[in-house]
């Protein structure tokens, strides 16, 4: 009995989520025990507080100063940096770009990933190989991907040649130079990179949908589409919600890909909050201003995350952040 439980340890996870967290060992916490507990948690806590929380707090402090990074913090200017950032049309544009990518990811990548995952969930020969290949872009660094596409999308470059080769020569645009469509190009490259991850996540979630339910519905005469709509998709809910959260946060923090692919251009058409921070903060030696931008970025992420937790994830992660278990 014990041995089989050992072997199938992870298989008990779905049951656990339905029943609530496993009973933690009810043991009165003695001093030695407390020492051990905090001893275990301390290293992670120290590193985390020291190199995540403290810097974030420091960023908030720096944001109140006019500081070029050298010498002491002398020129306190209160909220001027924030006023300047929120009044700068380039920064507001950057926020808009981030929000646009969030929206496009949810509306386009999500359904696309779900659809493809549903179709790939059948018994296919070479399923493992297909999954591996689809996941490859996720493993590559954003820099490598951005560079490859920058070369591919040059005017008259390989992508244009490919389009001409299949008879779509008239469709070619200045993919990276036209301010109107460059966001679309950026989104296309981002999708190329992250769709595989989304598909894999959905496939993983689909595996927890019991076959018997679909079979039973099929026996009752439900069509494939009806089965998906009424059984599979709702059960896929938790996965979709987790993916949406990760996608949202990732879209808000976007930097590497944009920096390498377009540098924020042309003429600020693809700036994101993070590229704006590096360009106006670091490159202009205005670290106080850069910190203010960073804090704004964090606040926006926080608002999104809290709203999301409250409104959407409440059922799935009961007790994770908003309440104690």
């Amino acid at each position, binding site marked *: 009995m*014990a041995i089989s439980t050992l072997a199938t340890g992870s298989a008990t996870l779905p049951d656990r989520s339905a029943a609530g967290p496993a009973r933690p060992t009810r043991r009165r916490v003695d001093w030695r025990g407390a020492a051990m507990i905090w001893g275990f948690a301390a290293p992670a806590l120290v590193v985390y507080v020291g190199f995540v929380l403290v810097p974030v707090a420091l960023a908030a402090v720096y944001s109140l100063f006019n500081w070029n990074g050298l010498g002491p913090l002398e020129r306190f200017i209160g909220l001027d940096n924030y006023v300047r950032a929120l009044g700068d049309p380039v920064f507001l544009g950057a926020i808009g770009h981030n929000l646009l990518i969030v929206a496009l990811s949810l509306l386009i990548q999500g359904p696309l990933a779900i659809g493809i995952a549903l179709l790939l969930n059948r018994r296919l020969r070479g399923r493992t190989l297909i999954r591996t290949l689809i996941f490859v872009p996720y493993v590559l660094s954003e820099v490598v991907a951005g560079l490859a596409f920058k070369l591919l999308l040059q005017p008259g470059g390989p992508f244009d040649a490919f389009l001409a080769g299949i008879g779509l020569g008239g469709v070619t645009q200045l993919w990276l130079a036209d301010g109107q469509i460059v966001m679309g190009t950026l989104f296309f490259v981002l999708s190329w990179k992250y769709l595989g991850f989304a598909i894999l996540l959905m496939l993983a979630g689909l595996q927890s949908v019991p076959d018997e339910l679909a079979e039973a519905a099929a026996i009752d005469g439900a069509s494939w589409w009806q089965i998906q709509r009424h059984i599979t998709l709702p059960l896929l809910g*938790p996965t979709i919600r987790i993916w949406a959260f990760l996608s949202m946060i990732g879209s808000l923090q976007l930097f590497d890909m944009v920096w390498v692919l377009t540098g924020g251009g042309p003429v600020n058409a693809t700036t994101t909050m993070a590229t704006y921070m590096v360009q106006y903060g670091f490159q202009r030696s205005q670290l106080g201003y850069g910190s203010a931008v960073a804090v704004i970025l964090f606040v926006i992420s926080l608002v999104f995350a809290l709203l999301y937790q409250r409104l959407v994830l409440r059922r799935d992660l009961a007790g994770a952040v908003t309440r104690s278990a």
Partner: protein
Amino acid sequence: MTAATLRAPERRRRVDWGSPLAYVIALMCVIVTIAPVLFVILNGFRTTRQMTLDPSGLPAPWVLDNYVAVLQSGNFWIQLGNSAIAALTTTAGVVVLGVMAAFVIARYAFRGRDLLFSLFTAGLLFPLSVAVVPLFVMIKGLGLLGSVAGIVIPQIAFALPTTIIILVPFLRAIPGELEDAATIDGAGRFGFFWRIVLPLSGPGLVTVGVLAFVASWNSYLLPLLILGDPSHATLPLGVQAFSTTYSQDTAKVLAFTSIAMLPALVFFTIAQRRIVGGLTGAVKG
């Protein structure tokens, strides 16, 4: 139940009918996914002149010079080494610190546990970019600027939230009876952790390890600002710097890029079953 068995052959036929569509979609996905990667790798075998004259052709003749030049450049090996050291150290640090913290959070009730967990979870919201300016100042103050340790420690710190969030459900699922059995054997909490929990949490550890490794290997912003000097930097920085040094010589840049891709691809091929399995477990959790 009997009806189900009777219907089984019919059901299978229904699934088979849908398959061709699935194959087509799968094929299209794979092509779109792999084509750019293949393009980069194949064009490393051409000269820039070939590329200018015929942007989408195959190498004719196959030219090894670019790849050889990259492999012979001292910078490449230094950058590769730095990336490897950084990624391995980050992974080790993240896994060790993460499993220890997740273990106590998952299995023991103590004052401050929920606060601790929330603290780590909130870390998901702190993008590295927010902390990058103060981190720069801190790392400089510690004298670690320009050294690999200067990026490893922050990377460990920022990877802890994801790690702990993934590991807590894993560790929680280990049945309480095992711990009771361990206590009876006189093992104590540490023994339980060392002899039972760690081996059992293998899949979870591999998952978070792989995620941490990939994140560290691909990270760009932090090394950009902390390491600065491309000849002592990590591979993503090296790729970018190389692309500007040889901006005229596109084929050579593509050769460097494809070699830079290789470690990640190889690593992924080896670990891919674990990654998928781990994601499955994490999603269910």
